[in-house]
Structure formats: structure tokens, C-alpha cells
């Protein structure tokens, strides 16, 4: 990693640790920040979340764009990159999706090295539990589609699942007996905050200005082109404007006076108090008549859990109590012995749910306004591929093949990428 500006970021290494030991506290610098907003940029990126920071990093590193600003309303990582349940996987059904997410998973495998920052990617496996023969058929179809694309997927019966994940005790008599599972061994988790920090640090080292507490309030135009953004810190000229605002993309549509195929919903998650190692994989469990629970154990020991969307449009970041109860009920159905464990924290993130459940990476209204959005509840795992591909799109003006399908025209053509097959109802995606 080269340093073009400032004195940030000594490269992390054993040698650096040794030097720091001798040099004392002054050896380390803030990872980002301290830059002042300049009057003009080549690219202004709105939103310092995973996708915005990754796009900035790849624009600077791969495409040599010199003047890049990332404008953030609050703080780096305040939004969904710090609110998700950290699962990374590529077990999708549709070809447009599984090729994209597989590209992302391959980037996760080397991300810590690429960023020189430990994102704690842990390929501990993702288990989709089947409770009926119908479930097995559905999972077999998805697994076969993945294997045809060269992605690892294993359909396991109860004995196989017991070998892979004995802590699940799939043989145990239950109200909803487990009949098998689809397992992606390369799926797993990564440390969500480290992803935001790692990209912010790497982008800063490549000369990107990250400006926090700077809300974009408007886009100014001239001659059918966007020419800059109004912010709470003043006006900024920009040749190209990128919106990567996740849950607030609906508001970006309003700001650009262009309706988008997006509805805004809440997804909540929760974490238990830290306990000793109990679960060494990610378990996804959809149980009849109640909902969904996915559960993993963080490296600190907390059981991280999430489930379905709250089920109605909302910007509150609160989360409804009966959904929390559903998720916990599912977790206890899976692991009855965690009934006495206490919930430590519960939170919610605002999701930009699209009408088909697949993302949108396209120009909106103006030729030089790019929107990277619609990641629904699955944006975290997409960050590395999204950043690289979207940077190519913004730099060259042509979307790479990997993200061509994620255009807005698909809704006009009726060629939606409806992964779950539920129709234009974001709440059911």
C-alpha cells in the first residue's frame, strides 16, 4: 500500500509492531479523518458504508482516480455495515446472482491481505436446515444450480449433518425434526466493523478524503448533467456523483425526483451475552408458521441472531418486539439449552428492499449520477465485489458483465431477478 498524502497508516506487519514498541504511542496515527472538504472532486461518493468506501478504494487503487470524496451524514460505519449479522456466502439460485456473489466470496478470501487489515473472515460454513422433503427438494435445486456454476455446495442427510455440525444434534427428537441440510463450507462470517475500518483506512492511504458529519441535501444540475452536491458543510463540485446510501436510497429517489423500485423496511438483529464456544458454523432455520432464525456465534462468544424483516415500511431503526420473540423462539427450537442465556443487545437496520430482491447498480436520471443500492438485507457479503465492479462502472462508464443484470431497465422489461419467486412484494423477498 503506497501513501500518497498525509502521514497515516504505517503498513501493519510484525516489523511495524516492533518499531511501534520502540517508538511509543506516537507511531500510530488515526486510520482516517482529518481531511478538509475541498471545493471540487472527480468523484463524490455519498455514504461511508461498506459499498461507498469499497467503491472509493477501488476507484483510487485500480483506476487511478485522484480526487475522491466520501461524504457521510454521520460516522464511518454508522449504518448497515455495522448493523448486519456478518454472514458471507454465495448460495444463490439465479445465475446472475450466484456468479456475482461467488466473485465476492473469492474476494473475501483474500480481503485481509488486500486491505492489510484483518477482517477476520472465517469460513466456518453456512448450513441451511431442511425440515421436510419439500425443503430438501428446494435446497437440492439451489445446491445443483450452485455446483453447475462451480460453487461448493453439499446436500447432507442427518448423518452427514451430524458429522459436520454435531452441536446441532440433528438426530434429537424435536417438534420440527431435521431431515437434512444444504451446506456451503466456504461461507461463514467476517468482522463487520473491521470491514468498514479496513476499507476506510485503505482508501485514506490512497488519497481519498473521508468527510464525516457531512449530509448531502441536494444535487445541483446544469445542462442536463449533475454538477455538484449541496451538503451541510457547503457546496461541492463533482464530475461524477455516486450514491451508496443503503437504507436511505428511497430518499435519494425523492431527491433526484425519480421514483425507484424500492421500499424501505427494517431488519433487526440481536446478540446474546458472551458464552463459551457452542456453535462453530452459521445455521439458517426457516420453521413453519413462525418465521426464520439465523444464528452464529461471534468470536467474542455472543450468539448473533436475526430473522425476517419487520414486515412494514419504516425508518425508525427500532424493531418490533414480536419479531424478536419469533427469532428467539427459532433459536431455542434449534438449541433448547440456550433458553437461559440473556439477550445483551437488540438493534435494527434500515433496508432498501427492491421489488425483486436483487440489487440495483445503474445510472439514475443523469448520465453522471450512479446509484449503488437495493442490497436488501444482504449487502454485507457483496461489499468486495460491489466495490470493485462499481468502481469500474463509474471510472469507465460501462458496467462490467458481472453487474450488467443489476440495471433499472429490468423492471420496465419485466425481466426481474426474483430470487425468491415472490413477485413485486419487497416485504416477502
Amino acid at each position, binding site marked *: 500500500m503506497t501513501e500518497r498524502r498525509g502521514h497515516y497508516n504505517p503498513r501493519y506487519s510484525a516489523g511495524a509492531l516492533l518499531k511501534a514498541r520502540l517508538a511509543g504511542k506516537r507511531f500510530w496515527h488515526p486510520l482516517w479523518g482529518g481531511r478538509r472538504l475541498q471545493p471540487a472532486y472527480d468523484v463524490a461518493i455519498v455514504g461511508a458504508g461498506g459499498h461507498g468506501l469499497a467503491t472509493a478504494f477501488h476507484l483510487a487503487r485500480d483506476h487511478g482516480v485522484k480526487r475522491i470524496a466520501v461524504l457521510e451524514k454521520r460516522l464511518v460505519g454508522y449504518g448497515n455495515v455495522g448493523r448486519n449479522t456478518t454472514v458471507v456466502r454465495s448460495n444463490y439460485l439465479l445465475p446472475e446472482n450466484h456468479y456475482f456473489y461467488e466473485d465476492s466470496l473469492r474476494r473475501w478470501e483474500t480481503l485481509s491481505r488486500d486491505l492489510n487489515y484483518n477482517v477476520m473472515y472465517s469460513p466456518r460454513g453456512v448450513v441451511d436446515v431442511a425440515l421436510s422433503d419439500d425443503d430438501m427438494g428446494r435446497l437440492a435445486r439451489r445446491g445443483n444450480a450452485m455446483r453447475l456454476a462451480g460453487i461448493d455446495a453439499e446436500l447432507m442427510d442427518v448423518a452427514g449433518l451430524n458429522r459436520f455440525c454435531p452441536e446441532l444434534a440433528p438426530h434429537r427428537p424435536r417438534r420440527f425434526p431435521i431431515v437434512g441440510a444444504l451446506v456451503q463450507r466456504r461461507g461463514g462470517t467476517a468482522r463487520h466493523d473491521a470491514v468498514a475500518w479496513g476499507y476506510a483506512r485503505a482508501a485514506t492511504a490512497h488519497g481519498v478524503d473521508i468527510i464525516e458529519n457531512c449530509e448531502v441535501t441536494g444535487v445541483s444540475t446544469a445542462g442536463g448533467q449533475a454538477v455538484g452536491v449541496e451538503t451541510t458543510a457547503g457546496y461541492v463540485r463533482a464530475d461524477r456523483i455516486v450514491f451508496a446510501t443503503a437504507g436511505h436510497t428511497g430518499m435519494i429517489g425523492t431527491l433526484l425526483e425519480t*421514483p425507484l423500485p424500492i421500499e424501505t423496511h427494517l431488519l433487526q438483529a440481536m446478540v446474546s451475552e458472551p458464552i463459551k464456544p457452542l456453535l462453530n458454523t452459521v445455521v439458517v432455520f426457516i420453521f413453519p408458521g413462525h418465521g426464520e432464525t439465523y444464528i452464529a456465534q461471534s468470536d467474542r462468544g455472543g450468539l448473533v441472531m436475526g430473522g425476517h424483516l419487520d414486515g412494514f415500511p419504516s425508518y425508525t431503526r427500532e424493531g418490533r418486539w414480536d419479531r424478536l420473540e419469533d427469532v428467539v423462539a427459532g433459536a431455542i427450537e434449534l438449541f433448547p439449552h440456550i433458553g437461559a442465556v440473556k439477550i445483551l443487545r437488540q438493534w435494527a437496520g434500515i433496508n432498501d428492499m427492491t421489488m425483486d430482491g436483487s440489487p440495483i447498480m445503474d445510472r439514475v436520471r443523469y448520465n453522471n449520477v450512479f446509484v449503488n443500492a437495493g442490497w436488501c438485507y444482504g449487502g454485507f457479503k457483496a461489499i468486495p465485489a460491489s466495490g470493485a465492479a462499481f468502481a469500474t462502472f463509474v471510472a469507465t462508464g460501462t458496467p462490467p458483465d458481472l453487474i450488467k443484470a443489476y440495471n433499472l431497465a429490468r423492471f*420496465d422489461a419485466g425481466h426481474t431477478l426474483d430470487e425468491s419467486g415472490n413477485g413485486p412484494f419487497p416485504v416477502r423477498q
Partner: protein
Amino acid sequence: MNQLICPFCGPRELHEFEFRKTQENVTSSELAKVYLRVDSLEHSCEYWQHALGCRAWLLIRRNPSTGAVLETTALPGPGAHQ
């Protein structure tokens, strides 16, 4: 938001109600009606059903930033208890 007030049954727990869809607010074409929405921080107009109660369909205006319910009206038609 933990309760909604059904015009027929009075205040009931949120889990009795099912959100169905947002009201179409873009009418430039039939496809736009299906797929496109104008988002607002203060105002959301939604079809709900009192699914685990009287089964009436409701049109509810809410503030999605606070969860406050601004107006609840029962939709006419078959199934409405009028």
C-alpha cells in the same frame, strides 16, 4: 409501534395485522404502478389486513420515521364489515 386500532375491533396487538403492500403512488404506466414508489420520510400509505381478527382490509396512513399512525380507514368491498 406495538398496536394498531382496527375501526371494527378497536386497539389490537400488531401481530394480528398483516401489512400487504404500499399504495401505488406512481401512475406513469401500468409497470410503474407495480414497481415504482416515491418514498417519503413523513408519509406512507399502506394496505393492511386485520388478518388474525375481523379480516377487514384497511388503508393506513403512517409516519415511517416515528411509527405514528395518522389515519386508518376500512376499505369498502366484499369482506368489509360495514
